[in-house]
């Protein structure tokens, strides 16, 4: 696969915007990306959009036809496609564009993801599947009340009992993230929290408090990407996407937070437990494709759906070994100004998650860092950035960018 260039990025702010549709959000993000790229939109040859399962109101299912919906809005007459891969959707939309460019089908593409989900716990919708035993996602709610947060909480609990993670750490992770978020204009939560406020927020699923779990948010992000050759017409120093590493479900992946209620036999057959995850495999694939290792990173943005997951990523991305993230966090090494800042944007903790848009939110954030325009949260001298996502159904991606 070829490296591609990012000419411009755009984001709608994250939050709840009941007066706006997914298409309104997407249009704003796309127009900002086109403006940032400073190109005539007629130069776009392909549109790759992330599906918003909550977008549109039936009939033509405009959210499912996201690529076409937004092409029409922008007055573009060109090939457009849409994909859905859970939280990895935006990254897959980008990967699709990369493949299209690498195959020589086009030189320049517009990529976007947008979402306007309902509030609260994600829950099964649509028809009652009560008697379908093969609908594991439905049955996990019905048989156990096992929400996504219940799954995340079990990961956090295990860290506590095995590696000494404390309630205090979990709260402090949110506190530090909120200190960065105050400078992030796209964040939904820009308030700086105290540890007491976090610990006093209600427990959702023990040990996770409300403020240690990300909310469901509205948001949209977009990027204009092109071949490296084409980029020369516009800039001498583009942001380059070096690798989009794909992690996929393996037979041995315990995968217990990704829907369903039982793993295959023999989870964690070989090696360390985290090596059997899609997140680890995504990172490994990206490092291999880019020809670099974790030691070459200037910073990373990780998918911290909970305070505890922020630490999990340090293992997944081989930044440290199993059981070491707790001490690494406490030492300050992963803070802005430290050896390897992780999540200087404030992360998902600061935005809440807009599923099909979230991966591209981070691509835009990493691009802003590499262009030196992440005001208030800038990583000094940032040259190589990594952002990751982890989606339902066994999708994960690690995206390495450089400038």
């Amino acid at each position, binding site marked *: 696969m070829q490296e591609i260039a990012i000419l411009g990025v755009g984001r709608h702010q994250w939050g709840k915007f009941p007066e706006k549709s997914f298409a309104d959000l997407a249009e704003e993000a796309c127009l900002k990306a086109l403006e940032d790229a400073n190109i005539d939109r007629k130069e776009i040859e392909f549109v790759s959009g992330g599906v918003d399962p909550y977008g549109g109101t039936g009939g033509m299912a405009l959210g499912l036809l996201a690529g076409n919906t937004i092409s029409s809005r922008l007055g573009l007459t060109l090939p457009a496609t849409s994909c859905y891969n859970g939280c990895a959707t935006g990254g897959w939309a980008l990967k699709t564009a990369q493949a299209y460019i690498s195959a020589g089908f086009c030189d320049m593409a517009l990529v976007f993801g947008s979402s306007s989900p309902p509030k609260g716990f994600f829950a099964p919708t649509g028809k009652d599947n009560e008697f379908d*035993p093969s609908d594991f996602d439905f049955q996990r709610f019905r048989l156990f009340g096992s929400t996504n947060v219940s799954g995340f909480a079990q990961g956090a*609990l295990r860290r506590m009992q095995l590696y000494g993670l404390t309630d205090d750490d979990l709260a402090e992770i949110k506190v530090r993230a909120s200190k960065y978020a105050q400078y992030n204009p796209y964040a939904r939560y820009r308030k700086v929290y105290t540890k007491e406020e976090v610990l006093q927020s209600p427990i959702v699923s023990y040990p*996770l408090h409300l403020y240690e779990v990300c909310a469901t948010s509205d948001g949209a992000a977009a990027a204009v990407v092109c071949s490296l050759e084409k980029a020369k017409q516009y800039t001498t120093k583009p942001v380059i996407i070096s690798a989009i590493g794909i992690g996929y479900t393996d037979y041995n992946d315990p995968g217990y937070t990704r829907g369903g209620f039982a793993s295959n036999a023999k989870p964690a057959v070989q090696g360390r437990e985290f090596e059997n995850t899609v997140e680890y495999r995504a990172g490994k694939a990206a490092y291999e494709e880019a020809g670099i290792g974790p030691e070459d990173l200037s910073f990373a943005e990780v998918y911290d759906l909970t305070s505890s997951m922020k630490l999990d990523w340090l293992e997944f991305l081989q930044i440290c070994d199993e059981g070491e993230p707790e001490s690494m966090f406490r030492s300050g090494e992963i803070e802005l100004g430290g050896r390897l800042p992780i999540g200087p944007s404030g992360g998902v903790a600061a935005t809440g998650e807009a599923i099909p848009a979230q991966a591209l939110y981070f691509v835009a954030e990493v691009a802003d860092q590499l262009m030196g325009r992440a005001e208030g949260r800038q990583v000094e001298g940032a040259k190589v950035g990594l952002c990751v996502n982890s989606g339902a159904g066994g999708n994960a991606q690690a995206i390495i960018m450089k400038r």
Partner: protein
Amino acid sequence: MEDMPKKQIPAVEGLFTMPPEEPHLKGSKCNACGDYFFPRVDSCRNPHCSKDKPVEEVLLSRKGKLYSFTVNHYPPPIFHKPDPFVPYSLGLIELPEGIRVTSIIGEEYNQDNLKVGMEMEMIIDKLYEDKDGNEVISWRFLPVSS
């Protein structure tokens, strides 16, 4: 008038043995590679298996180790619990066959009396009562010492 005896209905058909049988989850075992599956499968899913032998139905161990757990403090959507809601624990049990299975543990268990790695044993218990007064039943794993 005598009360009608309550009928026990499995929450999902075919996942576990029905009382008065000993409580077990019903799984499958591949006769070629020896791997186990739950719920039951029609063919082996191990990509490294030759798949030239049939899978057979087996009863899985009713004892396992607690892999992790949580206590739900908010009523999850579409979950049948009496009003008012009482926080309850659920967790993942690792069976000797290698499978990790989700289970309700119960209202009486939480971080004070549960520990990762402890031995757990399966029972069949009422999940909720349906509108006709039938007991809808499913599995639960409880600490063995209790």
